[in-house]
């Protein structure tokens, strides 16, 4: 039984890696196989997986995770500026720094639970945003955002070569991190992140987190010191967010304060609950759906709509365009908000739960039908 389980973890990982790495192929028919979008899938996938470790397993709703995303991005860009354009030091330092910041924010916020925890993280998010936007301008370059510059020292790079002309681009030992190679790098990181998440879900540690979500009171009277568990989960999810932030900088080396707005944390909540909070694959499903739809919806404008409804009689065509146009293009956020509400109202367990419900209904229906037939 034990051996079987071990193999199934391995099988899961192989299947998962295959699915992720072959995304450029199987997303082709959907028209979603270009590197930009694929990178987004992977990056937000990491973000959501990490968020799910906190919110999904322990039930603590944080609005502060955009902080760690931002810290990751800033750290990565600084690593590009000061050390090297190689992504390895950038990623490592980002994850570590995000972990440290998460440890601080988590240590303070986790002294409270429930809505107080949410509001504390909200206050921290706004505080860090303000810091990044105006106070810490020397570090974050404020409103403009942090960018690469020609005169950056890049000490490690300078040891091996002289500065070339023009801005250098991010690379992994000579392999440029733009386009598909950038995606594959993010994809490998996603696979690593997923592996960690899978291990946590299947470990006694994960079980204890779920137990905290279910009944923290009982947990304390069962001999557990719940706070270190929560803090660990918080730090791990913060490090995932830091990794995601670093990868954003890897694929596009600039970092801005808007990445740290608390509403950005709202987006990752939506992705997580849309797919299915607390499930292993749900958050990834949510990310793919939302980023894919965002990609389509925000590209659509009135002209596109006109052609889309071309088959209708012209008066109906115009009406349809008028009806639909508020929800596309600039109005994508409206659609997002409506989706958000719809999911929370009708399907709090997300799509994963929806599938299970449908499956159940389908099967019970079949069963009852067959039993009816037997009755006849």
């Amino acid at each position, binding site marked *: 039984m034990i051996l079987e389980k071990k193999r199934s973890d391995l099988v899961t990982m192989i299947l998962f890696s295959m699915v992720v790495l072959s995304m450029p192929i199987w997303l082709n028919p959907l028209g979603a196989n270009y590197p930009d979008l694929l990178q987004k899938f992977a990056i937000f996938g990491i973000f959501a997986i990490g968020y799910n470790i906190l919110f999904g397993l322990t*039930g603590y*709703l944080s609005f502060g995770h955009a902080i760690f995303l931002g810290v990751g991005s800033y750290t990565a860009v600084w690593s590009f500026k000061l050390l090297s354009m190689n992504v390895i030091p950038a990623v490592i330092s980002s994850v570590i720094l995000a972990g440290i910041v998460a440890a601080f924010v988590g240590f*303070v916020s986790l*002294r*409270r*639970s*429930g*809505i*107080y925890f*949410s*509001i*504390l993280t*909200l*206050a*921290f*998010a*706004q*505080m860090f945003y*303000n*810091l990044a*936007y*105006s*106070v*810490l301008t020397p570090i974050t370059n404020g409103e403009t955002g942090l960018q690469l510059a020609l005169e950056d020292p890049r000490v490690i790079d300078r040891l091996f070569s002289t500065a070339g002309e023009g801005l250098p681009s991010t690379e992994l030992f000579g392999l440029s991190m733009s386009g598909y190679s950038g995606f594959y790098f993010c994809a490998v990181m996603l696979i690593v992140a997923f592996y960690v998440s899978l291990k946590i879900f299947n470990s006694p540690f994960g079980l204890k987190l779920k137990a905290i979500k279910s009944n923290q009171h009982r947990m304390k009277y069962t001999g557990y010191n719940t706070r270190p568990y929560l803090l660990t989960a918080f730090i791990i999810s913060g490090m995932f967010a830091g990794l995601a932030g670093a990868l954003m900088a890897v694929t596009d080396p600039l970092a801005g304060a808007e990445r740290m707005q*608390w*509403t950005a944390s*709202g987006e990752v*909540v*939506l992705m997580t*609950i849309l797919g299915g909070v607390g499930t292993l694959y749900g958050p990834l499903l949510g990310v793919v759906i939302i980023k894919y739809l965002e990609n389509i919806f925000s590209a659509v404008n009135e002209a596109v709509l006109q052609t889309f409804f071309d088959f209708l009689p012209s008066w109906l065509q115009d009406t349809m365009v008028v009806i639909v146009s*508020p929800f596309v293009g*600039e*109005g994508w*956020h*409206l659609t*997002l*908000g*409506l989706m*958000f*509400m719809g999911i*929370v*109202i009708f399907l*709090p367990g997300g799509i994963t739960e929806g599938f299970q419900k449908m499956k159940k209904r389908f099967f019970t229906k079949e069963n009852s039908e067959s039993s009816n037939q037997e009755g006849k």
Partner: protein
Amino acid sequence: MDAILIQLLNGLDKGAAYALIALGLTLVFGTLGVVNFAHGALFMLGAFCAVTFQKILTISVKVVDPSITFFTAYKEQPYLEIWFGDVGLAIIDYAVPLSIFMAIPVMLLIGLVMERGLIRHFYKRTHAEQILVTFGLAIVIQEVIRHFFGANPIPTPAPDIVSSSAAIGSWLGLSENLVYPWWRLIYLAFSALIITSVFAFLQLTTFGMIVRAGMFDRQMVGFLGIDVQRKFTIVFGLAAVVAGLAGVMYAPILPPDYHMGMDFLVLSFVVVVVGGMGSLGGAVAAGFLLGILQSFASMTVITELVPGIDQVIIYLVAVIVLLTRPRGLMGRKGVMED
């Protein structure tokens, strides 16, 4: 001295806005037990009531401009001016204060619809779900407003007569240069009026008594056979009106844009928490306190001493209060203390 007085007034102004939003927020939380992330959106909707009303009043028609004689020029002339002449212009001038009369029924309606249509179904859900669904609603409202009014702030001026500044310096026998905008003073007085009426309403009427009892022990009030559901709906409507009126009157101070609700939301949550979740007096006191604190922190003397303190002071205070005195300044013992 002058600077301190100005900052005090600025702080009171800001604080009045925080207090009015937080008042409704804590009222809704105390009675309905719902954490409403869409409350900031109500404030924003109030401000857009003023914008809309102004737009309606200034609906114009193209007419020939008689002041330009050497060719036929056109100008936009509001119907009100054409119909009523100077009286019409005066009405337009007073758009913001007049829009209060439109805002009250509109906000009440919005509040009732929101409670009946959405919030009611979330009484029994978890706080996390309440937060998420109202957060979604806030986004929807915000985006709808952006769709109709665009992304840019819309200037909504106060009536001409109060657009100048009051010479408070000379009233108090201080410097002649000490002046303060009339409208901000009016805003302050208006807020005080609203806060007083809400408190009077809750203290003096039977309805208010039930609401206060409900805040104390919701189940008990239910056992007494009082139709709590209906009372809740009205409380929610009331909170919406208060937030809306705050928005209307704030429009001349801060030109409304679609995300002002979200900006104020976080602050008012902080205010509610500092004041004590579910405590009305606490919300008002904390609102003014934090407004003044923020205002003083932004004085040059202070920012030179601690750069950027004005940007984070409120949140720092909130974090410290939550950690050292989780029930807030005036919260009841045992409420949400875990």
